[in-house]
């Protein structure tokens, strides 16, 4: 299992692996939004948590179609399915590798980019907490979508359409934690919901992903 994780991380970092793609997209969104909104710092401060969360979510979505499709194309997925690793472990490791290469950099970069959007002072801590709690759910749900569409040519559009509705609860509660944190309100309720979504997705979806992957490999 460690071998698979290390291989995926190494592949992501090597040339053409797509590491940094999500981060670059996140940077572009947060740099351009202030230009589009105009010089209204009060408005920017209001929308900052939502924009940061939306940017992070779309950045996660961007790299999903590579998650399993590359392994499908070169036959590794067939070979992994006949290896001693259970497919449930394979998809969990794949989701973890996706989170480390996409979700974690977003979490770490978010405070720096919050400055560009005039995020209020108390909001930084809650932004990082909410992203750290929510992005694992985005990776796990995304892996499920990738498993559903793995055999399809140009499955990226279908993947986005399937995954976006599943992302909505994470977005609502994640952005709510960041928004409440930024204005100094109590964040316990949305944060618990967000952690619950992540924990539930992490516990259940690998089994669903492995099941649809088995069907798709036939």
């Amino acid at each position, binding site marked *: 299992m460690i071998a698979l994780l290390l*291989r995926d991380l190494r592949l992501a970092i090597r040339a053409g692996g797509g590491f940094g793609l999500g981060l670059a997209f996140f940077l572009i969104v947060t740099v351009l939004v202030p230009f589009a909104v105009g010089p209204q710092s009060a408005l920017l401060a209001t929308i900052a948590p939502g924009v940061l969360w939306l940017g992070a979510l779309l950045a996660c979505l961007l790299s999903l179609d590579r998650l399993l499709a590359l392994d499908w194309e070169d036959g590794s997925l067939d070979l992994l399915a006949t290896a001693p690793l259970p497919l449930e472990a394979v998809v969990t490791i794949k989701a973890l590798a996706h989170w480390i290469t996409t979700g974690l950099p977003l979490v770490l970069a978010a405070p720096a980019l919050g400055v560009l959007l005039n995020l209020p002072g108390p909001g930084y801590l809650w932004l990082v907490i909410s992203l750290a709690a929510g992005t694992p759910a985005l990776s796990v749900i995304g892996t499920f979508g990738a498993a559903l569409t793995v055999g399809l040519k140009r499955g990226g559009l279908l993947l986005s359409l399937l995954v976006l509705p599943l992302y909505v609860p994470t977005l609502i509660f994640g952005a709510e934690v960041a928004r409440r944190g930024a204005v100094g309100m109590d964040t316990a309720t949305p944060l618990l919901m967000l952690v619950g979504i992540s924990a539930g997705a992490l516990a259940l979806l690998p089994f669903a992903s492995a099941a649809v992957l088995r069907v798709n490999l036939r």
Partner: protein
Amino acid sequence: MDLTVSDLTIARGGVPVLAGLGFVLEPGHALILRGPNGIGKTTLLRTIAGLQPPVSGRVTGAEDRIAYAAHADGIKPTLSVAENLRFWARVFGAGGIQPALEAFDLTALSGRPAGSLSAGQKRRLGLARLLVTGRPVWVLDEPTVSLDTRAVAMFADAIRAHLAWGGSALIATHIDLGLEAEVLDVSPFRADLAKTAGTDAFDEAFG
């Protein structure tokens, strides 16, 4: 432990292709599958490897004992030859990669990115993966594609060593590997479409 296939019916895309197929593959033996294109050799091998369920019949002695090699080699172009092999060795929990590199004359290439290899060299890397799995039953689908005569001889030697060690091999191929192996022509097992699917459905719909 034997690999036993009994009364197997398999389907590709919902259409039965082979029916009533059965054979026993003992340790130390190789079985070569022959048959025209489209007869279902790949489907048969995928079924035995557990990648798809059979329509009916049973495959025993395959669970966690199979090393499968398909048309695609599962090679990552940005990893080096040694990194590719080491990954599979670690996944299968088997030993070192040096014997596998030597068996397929890949030692000199071990530091090269796999993406820069020729088609034949990639195939050799794909076959070297079989040696690092430590699995007793090799299930091989057209393993000699894009290999030259010298590489085919290397491959035949690897198979012989594997059989001598007590392993077995099930190979779908059209060329003569020079192995002491039984040959099974799957053509007589072609599924009778009219009997297996057509008439019943027709009768239900229009009868």
